[in-house]
Each structure stands twice: as structure tokens, then as C-alpha cells.
């Protein structure tokens, strides 16, 4: 039998030797140095204001800001069929700049842009749709993080890569990638699905439009249902509502 007092001591001795990150990174703030407790306090207070302010602003202004940046209209696209409105409401996102529209469940919205994220080469546009509340979303999101059960629509320069090959450059491991064909808004496309973690799976749709590639992606898991009753079927319905202008 393992003597537990000894285990305690071994745990403390060994784990206490693990290296710590720089002290400046302990608190999630951009402050690089804290020469005094007073300044620490000020930084923390500013962090509180920023965090609370960001959450409020995200809630109140995300749609307006997205609209201003992206030329988005909440008016339904002319060719968008009404019956696709989900969960008893029409919540249509229209992206005139890149020529597509999508129908969201009534309680979904455009997530605020992730601060500090650098778009990868070739990415022209990226919009994240979420069914999670501002508080939940702000809590989850990070610079290089995709929130499970959100839907992301990206537009990329195609740079000669075909839709049927896009999965190869999209992190879909050859050994575990499930690739298929699909049709979105009467355009042929390809799908790919692959495990990212034991309990998490990425699903992606690739549609070629001239020299651009439209990519829709979402991650599901753990489990079959996300927050607020979001299921994979919810996400597939949103993807299926895609319309090109």
C-alpha cells in the first residue's frame, strides 16, 4: 500500500519543481511589468473595466459593428427561402462584400471579432456565429481558439487549391479524415470531418467560387449537445441555409 503521507511529500517535492511562466503572464492582461502592488492594483482594476466593458460592448454593439465593417444587412436576401427560418424566427445574416447570406436561429448572433487575432495568409473574411450568450462567449474565446458549437464562415483566396483538396491544407489528418461531396445552394462542394481531440470533432464545408474558397466550419463535442440545446443538426441546418448573392 502506498503510504499517503509519503505521496503528499513526493507530489510537493516533484511538482514544486515544475517551471512557472513569467510572472507578467499570470494575470490575463497586456501589462508587461508591475513594479509595485499599487500599479498591479491599477492594472487589475483596468482589466476589470475592460473585461466588463468588452462584455457589454460585445452584447450591445457586435451586430452594429459587424454591419459597419462588413456591409451587413439584416434584411433577408431576395432568394432566401422563408421556410428556412429556424427556431421560430428569421435571423438573416447577409454579407454583401463576399456575396453570401445565411439564416441563423432566432437567438444566434455574430460574435465579436477576436482581439489580437492575426488572420492567416489568404484569409479575406471571417465571421463567427454563436448561439452562446455574450458572457459565455467572452469567457470561452481566446486568440487562437475556436469555440465548440459556434459556426465560422471564412472566405479565402483559393490560390489554385481546389475544393476537393482543401481538406489537405485544413488540418484534416489523412488517416482519420472523412471526406465527402455535398451541394450548398446548388453549388457542388466538399465536406471533411476529423477528430481534433478524443471528444471533439471538426466539420468543414468547402465551396469554390471563382478564385475564392468559402469555408464553413464548426466543432462539436464533448457530447451530442452544446449549450442552449445546440446540436449538430442545428449547425447543419444553418449550413444548409447558405445562399449566394
Amino acid at each position: 500500500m502506498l503510504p499517503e503521507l509519503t505521496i503528499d511529500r513526493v507530489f510537493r517535492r516533484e511538482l514544486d519543481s515544475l517551471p512557472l511562466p513569467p510572472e507578467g503572464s499570470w494575470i490575463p492582461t497586456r501589462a508587461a511589468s508591475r513594479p509595485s502592488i499599487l500599479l498591479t492594483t491599477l492594472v487589475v482594476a483596468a482589466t476589470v473595466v475592460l473585461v466588463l466593458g468588452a462584455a457589454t460592448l460585445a452584447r450591445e454593439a457586435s451586430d452594429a459593428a459587424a454591419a459597419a465593417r462588413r456591409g451587413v444587412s439584416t434584411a433577408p436576401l431576395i432568394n432566401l427561402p422563408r421556410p428556412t427560418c429556424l427556431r421560430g424566427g428569421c435571423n438573416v445574416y447577409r454579407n454583401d462584400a463576399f456575396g453570401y447570406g445565411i439564416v441563423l436561429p432566432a437567438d444566434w448572433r455574430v460574435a465579436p471579432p477576436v482581439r489580437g487575432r492575426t488572420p492567416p495568409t489568404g484569409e479575406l473574411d471571417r465571421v463567427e456565429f454563436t448561439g452562446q450568450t455574450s458572457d459565455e462567449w467572452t469567457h470561452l474565446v481566446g486568440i487562437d481558439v475556436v469555440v465548440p458549437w459556434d459556426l465560422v464562415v471564412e472566405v479565402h483566396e483559393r490560390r489554385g487549391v481546389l475544393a476537393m483538396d482543401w481538406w489537405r491544407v485544413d488540418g484534416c489528418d489523412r488517416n482519420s479524415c472523412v471526406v465527402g461531396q455535398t451541394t450548398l445552394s446548388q453549388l457542388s462542394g466538399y465536406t471533411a470531418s476529423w477528430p481534433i481531440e478524443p471528444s471533439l470533432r471538426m466539420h468543414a464545408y468547402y465551396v469554390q467560387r471563382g478564385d475564392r474558397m468559402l469555408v464553413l466550419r464548426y466543432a462539436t463535442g464533448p457530447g451530442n449537445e452544446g449549450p442552449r440545446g445546440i446540436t449538430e443538426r442545428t449547425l447543419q441546418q444553418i449550413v444548409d441555409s447558405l445562399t449566394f448573392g
Partner: protein
Amino acid sequence: MTAERWAELYRLEFPRLYRALLAVLRDRDRALDALHDAFVAGLRHPPAHDADLAGWLFVVAIRSSRRLRRLPLLPLEWVTGHSGDDEIEATLDRMEVGRLLAGLTERQRAMVVAQFYLGLDHREIARHFGVKTGTVSATLAQAKARMRAEVRNAS
């Protein structure tokens, strides 16, 4: 609790909580992200008592690490999927504790670390994890059995 007080307590607890999360998650980025999330969560809804702080932060961070996964976002780059943290894995594998924990599930590791490193008793672990004390006892018993087997195999 004021934000200043919260930050002060968080700073005091950071070293052992970060190391506890490293032992469970075996990934520096995930450990730091999870702890940051727990800090932000505490700014909004701090725990009721200072005495609960370490256990509260630990479990909020563990939960956050499960919900928030680092996923590839770069469609035009070859992405290798979730990037392991080779250096910290190697460090842990050199440690007796790291090798013992490696054979456990993440949930077992979390409870073992909560008990043996953070010093929480079964009742505290149960309260923080939101499970029954019996569940904690059973999980820890299984974990200890595995660790004993590992010790036997190693010797």
C-alpha cells in the same frame, strides 16, 4: 470581494495551481489559458470564501480546459492538430509523480492532484467537482490502484 483582493489571492495561489494544472493537463498553454479563464470567472462571480479559493480556481480551470480546446484555425497552413507540449511532457515523464499520473485518466489525475498536491479532502473535492463523496472515494481508489500497479511494474 474586490477585484484587487481577488487578484492578490489569485497571485498567491498561482504557482501551485499552475503546477497542479500542468500535472493534470500536461500542456503549458492549456494550463495557463485555463487559469486565466478561472481568474476572469472569479472577477465576475468570486467564490464565497477565501478558504475555498485554491479548490475553486482549480476546478473552474479544469472545467474550462475541457470546454475550451485549442483548435487549428489556419486553413492555408498545414496544421498538425492539437499541439502537444513535448518539453513539459518530457519533464513530467522524468518525474516519479509524472509517470504515475500519466497512467490515469484526466479526471483521475485532477482528483489525485487535488488530494495529494493541493491538500483537499474527499468532501472538499466532491463539493468543488459537484459530485458525491462516494464518487470521489471510488475515483481515487481506482487511481491509487493504478498507481500501485505502476509502482509494482516499475520495480
